[in-house]
């Protein structure tokens, strides 16, 4: 059995937990405007699940699941959507929060001042920017990990 992954224990545990890690990462991104965390942190958590898959199953583990070109495209989509969201409020200022307290359906609700549990549908551009940056970070770090693993493997065989 030609396989450069790790032992069957690691692979079995990885099969159990990698979905939960991805789910937790998306939770951190989604609630970035309410709880600690945000786009950067949640994206790093999701990317760590991809890194775990790579370590446990070896370079063949992600073949057919994650495409490097797709990852790079999604990273640029995240970066450009972050820039576009920043340019939305250019009428007032760069990075002006256009949707906050607007009352619209897109995160436009207001938050009562003082201690409270937070309102999910509030924050204006902040949750949307969280998603953009989260997409960028998760695909970017996953691309870095995959590129470095494939590159080092190639040098071993040469």
């Amino acid at each position, binding site marked *: 059995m030609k396989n450069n992954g790790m032992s069957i224990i690691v692979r079995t545990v990885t099969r159990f937990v990698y979905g939960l890690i991805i789910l937790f990462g998306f939770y951190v991104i989604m609630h970035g*405007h309410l709880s600690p965390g*945000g786009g950067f942190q949640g994206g790093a958590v999701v990317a760590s699940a991809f890194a775990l898959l790579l370590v446990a199953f070896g370079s063949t583990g992600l073949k057919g699941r994650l495409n490097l070109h797709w990852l790079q495209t999604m990273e640029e989509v995240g970066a450009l959507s*972050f820039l576009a969201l*920043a340019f939305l409020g250019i009428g007032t200022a760069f*990075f002006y929060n256009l949707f906050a307290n607007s009352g619209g359906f897109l995160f436009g609700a207001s938050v009562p001042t003082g201690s409270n549990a937070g309102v999910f549908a509030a*924050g204006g551009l902040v949750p949307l920017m*969280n998603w953009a940056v989260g997409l960028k970070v998760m695909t970017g770090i996953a*691309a870095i990990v995959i590129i470095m693993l494939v590159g080092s493997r190639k040098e071993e065989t040469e």
Partner: protein
Amino acid sequence: MRKVALFVAFLFVGAFLLLGVADMRPFGEPQIADMDDYYIANTQREVAVNNVVTAVVFDYRGFDTLGEATVLFAAVVGILALFRKPREDER
């Protein structure tokens, strides 16, 4: 000789650090807190976000976050340029 010089340098740096510790303000009482007070007082009203850190990162200091995203982009592009497979005619 080399060890003595290292030890003297160690003593100097340590003395400076200890002097700095003696001059430190007590925990939780910064000298200038105008910006912090403004964020804490106005974030919920202006940005409608409970997480003040996220409000600072994505709203008040959004330009800084753009720079961080650019750093990540540059890292990905640099690593791709370093590790990419060379084409046949470049070998």
